């Protein structure tokens, strides 16, 4: 529990740090005004008392003086409230934005992919992403707390001056606070439990309304069925949440009773004191105003405190991300070996084994392989054989569990990673459908050249994406995808060519990774793409990159200089097409199976 508390404090420190970094002056001004505001209610009560007492005591000059002073204070406070509410929204926006930037920085600066791919980590990252409004709440929460604290303190002091017994007021209503706090907390908790069902309801809604599923919904007549499921599911969890809320409302009613009793008791008590001559008329006016305010603030405190429960939940995960130490540790540029401009000797896998963090199964076992410079290597194997994992290690999205990967004898872990990636071009099976203008969707493959339309055009031609772009209404400046205004959606094959063009943007890559790059292409396009790669690899074999190709298609595979057959995480065969065919092993068997149908 105290551990949780200290974590919450740390969450606040981080958020405050960001708020201050976003706008220091504003943040300070805001917290001060929040505190002053909190006390303003008490001040009003005090002033009323003084004026009334002066009037009753026959001191008109004093009454007018205090009255005017009060009006000035009132005016200042009212106008400051306007300024403060503006400051609050302004600073809130800036803090949220600072948090977003921090989140992007932390998540994307991790060189590896573990935090995104490992389910239990991915859940945390997703939660932080989906609730990025929470830091903003933390900020307003803090503000409100500051107001409540100052206000309540001032109120208690004033009440104590009138009569010490009145200090009991906050004590009397305390059980109500506990009840309310528990109420809110349970409410948040219950919400966490219905969250999976709510996501499912959301999925039904999306299936029925989004373009991606529109065809099947119509063809299979799923509409009414999905609506009915949505109704049943939402009725169920909403009914439960509502019943829960109602049940708890009675606890709220009890708390309300306590507040009411405390309030009426305080006013009645001071009224009795006044009639008894032990309190002035001004004291009564003070208590009437301050007691109500105090009770209101106590209620507010309960609500704010409950937010803490929610905040600590999200905050935990946020802190986790901030403190996340990726397993892929990057050496600082000074200590790392510079990445080679081109591979001179080759890339070697030396006894490489790999198990995804958090899992048991070894996906690569003792893989040793030497890939000479300027060769094209095809990785072959059935689903789950370890092809993609091998590629991920080569891109250093993960580090091997055992063994090492070297480039010209230098361990990849000792190499300047940014430099190495700058010399890597890649196209993946699950490529990104960048919702950017066409030139950028290609150009991000080599950021320094993103505006160099000539190079973008050249890459597009190499990948056969030029014909896709020609057909677009605005050519290279057409917005791609349907997410944004005037966006043009492409077919899967067209998207794939754009992804390939992007993979070819690096000016003189040392490594080119093509993980199933042609699944959606027609035969002619596929042929052109292969021809391009083959020529890239061979033109002046001094310059060509090492090309790693993953494919199920043997038509592609056979073009490689070297074919590596993986099975159950181990290398089963290595050789050229002709060699492997002659060997009559797994490769020959699979190849014949496909070839027999042509």
């Amino acid at each position, binding site marked *: 529990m105290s551990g949780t508390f200290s974590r919450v404090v740390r969450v606040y420190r981080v958020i405050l740090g960001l708020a201050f970094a976003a706008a220091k002056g504003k943040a300070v001004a805001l917290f001060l005004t929040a505190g002053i505001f909190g006390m303003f209610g008490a001040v009003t009560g005090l002033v009323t008392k003084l004026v009334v007492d002066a009037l009753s005591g026959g001191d008109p000059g004093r009454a007018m003086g205090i009255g005017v002073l009060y009006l000035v204070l009132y005016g200042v406070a009212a*106008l400051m409230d306007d300024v403060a509410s503006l400051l609050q929204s302004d600073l809130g926006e800036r803090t949220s934005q600072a948090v977003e930037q921090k989140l992007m920085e932390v998540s994307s600066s991790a060189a590896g992919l573990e935090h995104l791919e490992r389910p239990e980590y991915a859940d945390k990252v997703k939660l932080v992403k989906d609730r990025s409004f929470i830091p903003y709440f933390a900020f307003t929460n803090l503000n409100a707390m500051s107001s409540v604290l100052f206000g309540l303190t001032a109120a208690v002091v004033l009440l104590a001056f009138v009569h010490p017994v009145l200090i009991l007021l906050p004590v009397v209503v305390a059980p109500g606070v506990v009840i309310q706090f528990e109420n809110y907390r349970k409410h948040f908790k219950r919400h966490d439990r219905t969250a999976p069902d709510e996501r499912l309801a959301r999925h039904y809604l999306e299936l029925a309304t989004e373009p991606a599923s529109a065809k099947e919904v119509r063809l299979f007549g799923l509409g009414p*069925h999905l609506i009915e499921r949505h109704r049943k599911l939402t009725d169920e969890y909403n009914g439960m949440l509502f019943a829960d809320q109602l049940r708890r409302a009675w606890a709220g009613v009890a708390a309300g009773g306590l507040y009411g009793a405390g309030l009426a008791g305080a006013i009645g008590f001071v009224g009795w004191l006044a009639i008894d001559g032990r309190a002035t008329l001004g004291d009564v006016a003070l208590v009437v105003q301050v007691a109500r305010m105090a009770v209101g603030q106590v209620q507010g405190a309960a609500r704010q405190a409950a937010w803490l429960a929610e905040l600590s939940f999200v905050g935990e995960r946020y802190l986790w991300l901030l403190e996340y130490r990726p397993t892929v540790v990057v050496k600082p540029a000074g200590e790392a070996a510079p990445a080679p401009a081109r591979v001179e000797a080759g890339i070697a896998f030396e006894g490489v084994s790999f198990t995804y963090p958090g899992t048991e199964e070894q996906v690569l076992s003792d893989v040793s392989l030497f890939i000479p410079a300027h060769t094209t290597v095809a990785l072959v194997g059935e689903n789950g054989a370890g092809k993609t994992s091998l590629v991920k290690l080569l891109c250093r999205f993960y580090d091997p569990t055992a063994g090492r990967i070297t480039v010209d004898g230098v361990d990849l872990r000792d190499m300047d990673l940014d430099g190495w990636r700058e010399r890597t071009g890649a196209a993946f099976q699950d490529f990104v459908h960048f919702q950017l203008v066409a030139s950028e969707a290609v150009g991000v493959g080599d950021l320094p050249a993103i505006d160099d339309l000539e190079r973008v055009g050249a890459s597009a031609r190499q990948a056969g994406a030029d014909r896709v772009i020609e057909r677009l209404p605005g050519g290279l400046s057409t917005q791609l995808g349907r997410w944004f205004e005037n966006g043009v959606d492409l077919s899967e094959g067209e998207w794939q060519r754009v992804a390939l063009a992007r993979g070819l943007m690096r000016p003189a890559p040392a490594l080119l990774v093509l993980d199933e790059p042609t699944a959606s292409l027609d035969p002619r396009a596929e042929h052109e793409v292969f021809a391009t790669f083959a020529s890239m690899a061979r033109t002046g074999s001094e310059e060509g990159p090492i090309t790693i190709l993953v494919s199920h298609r*043997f038509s592609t595979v056979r073009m490689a200089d070297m074919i590596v057959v993986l099975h159950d995480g181990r290398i089963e065969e290595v050789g050229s097409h002709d060699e492997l065919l002659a060997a009559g092993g797994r490769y020959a068997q699979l190849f014949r199976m496909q070839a027999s149908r042509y």
Partner: protein
Amino acid sequence: MDQPTPRDELVANARGMGLVARSAPGLAFILLAMTVVSGAAPAVAVAGTGKFLATLPEAIAAGAASPAGREVREALVLIAGAVFLSQLVGPLQQAVLFGLQRKFEAYLSRRLMTATVALPGLAYFEDPEFRDELAVAHWIGFGPVHTLQFMVQVFQQGAQLVAMAAVAATYAGWVPVLVLLSAVPGGVASWRFESITGLARWRRSEDTRRAEYYRNLAVTREPGKELRIFSLPAWARARQARHWLAGVQEMLALRRTGLQWVLGLHAVAVAGVAVAYVVMLRSTIDGRTAVGTFTAASIAAVGLSTAVVAMLREASRARRSSFYLPSAMRVLGLAEADPRLDLSGTTPARRAHLHPAQGAARARTGIRFQGVSFTYPGTDRRILDRLDLDIEAGTSVALVGENGAGKTTLIKLLCRFYDPDEGRITVDGVDIREFDLDDYRSRLAVIFQDFVHYNLPARDNVGFGALQRAGDASVLREAAARVGILEQIEALPEGWDTTLAREFGGVDLSGGEWQRVALARAMMAQVGRDADLLVLDEPTASLDVRIENELYGHFAELSRGKTTLLVSHRFSTVRMAGRIVLVAGGRVVEDGGHETLIAAGGRYAELYEVQASHYRLTGTLE
């Protein structure tokens, strides 16, 4: 989306309230009833406090037993009672509001689903404006409830305002009038301020969405690999910052200038209160007014001014979400207003004629495209150009052609997601526009290239192909067995009940497994509802050699007696069909058996050669 006029907003809000009432009539009524009680109670408390303060000096002077003393006690009872009542009703009212809000949100989602699935074709999905409106409608959920909540508040605060005005008026009638009038300019300024800044943000919502897009590039899994390989993190951050700023800049600037107006006009309100206060105080000092009256009236006057300004500010905030309401309401009414697919061809009388009793024999003559031309709405490239194609009942045809040749479009027209611009498509001699749409579609078993990954149990992923038989385990098993995925499904941790999505607490499938699940769904349509037209768009794209080979073995059985249309880039797959049709430039350019087309040496032969040459062996296998 066009900027809505205030009238649009008003109408949309009124319709929104109507929807709220319809979503849960009982709760809505209870809420209103509670509002009356909870609104009246604080007003009574205010009046009671006024009475208490005004009478207390007299009671002190005359003693507790005097009539004034009795009045003070009565006032106290009134305050206590009112505070109790509002504290009691408050939590219950919150609970009811919560329930109503949830119910309404679910109801609105369903209305949205109903409106969307009622659109028979796909033309709307090509329309960017519709997509925007749909996206907005998705998250508008709370809008009308906010409005309702606000109205509840207005009622409660309104009652308090009246009570405060009444107490202030115990000094003189002009006091509340002055306070109210002087508060109006500040309130109006707040209202203008909120709507101007809100609109500024609304206008730049595209930038805000882009900022979110770049954020997601950096923090989600899917783009993770490319983001790192291409060193994009800093770039994504810079883009996010740029669009965030573009999204809020105008609003922030307007806020700053607007604030001066708000401050200026709010100062008028303060001046109004100050004048009233000083006059009252003066008159009390001069002995013309009782101290008690001053105390009660001055507290009420200050409270009145603060409350009026706060209420108007609330009102303007409530308006923020209502900018979006008109477009959301428009989506709900689309299907009736303009379905963009003319369904008038099917009169009930004709339908009866075309569909005699279930199972009655139809003359099956197959599918026929006659001079079909088609251009997607909102574009000007003609995808199909007077295309003619006959597919005899019970035969298989493979469509081949390059990316963008129009193969998938042809399938979409066959499914009647669009109607041709020219020409007609007939099935068994009848224009498909004349069939009842649902009946017609139930004859089709289709796997689309971009099939859906339902984040639902395997049972649904297959069963959705024929809902009416989805409860029948033997039908499900048969559909899965036909495409060789039965064993894998039954080996899943919870068998058929395993959810096929890790983020929904289930398991993830590989691309090839998904494709077979989608194929099984098409088979389900065939087995479960006797669909006699089979359409397979790229059914083998992600399958590895071994599995494709198995499927090849099953194909004859899958398509037996069915009219089958097959689209594929893989010629190994294409050869499953007896007849091959090559589409280019929106027309059929070659048509015949594999051997015939190869012998003809045309485009097909050339494309085939390109692919097959990779498999040709130097003498070892022929």
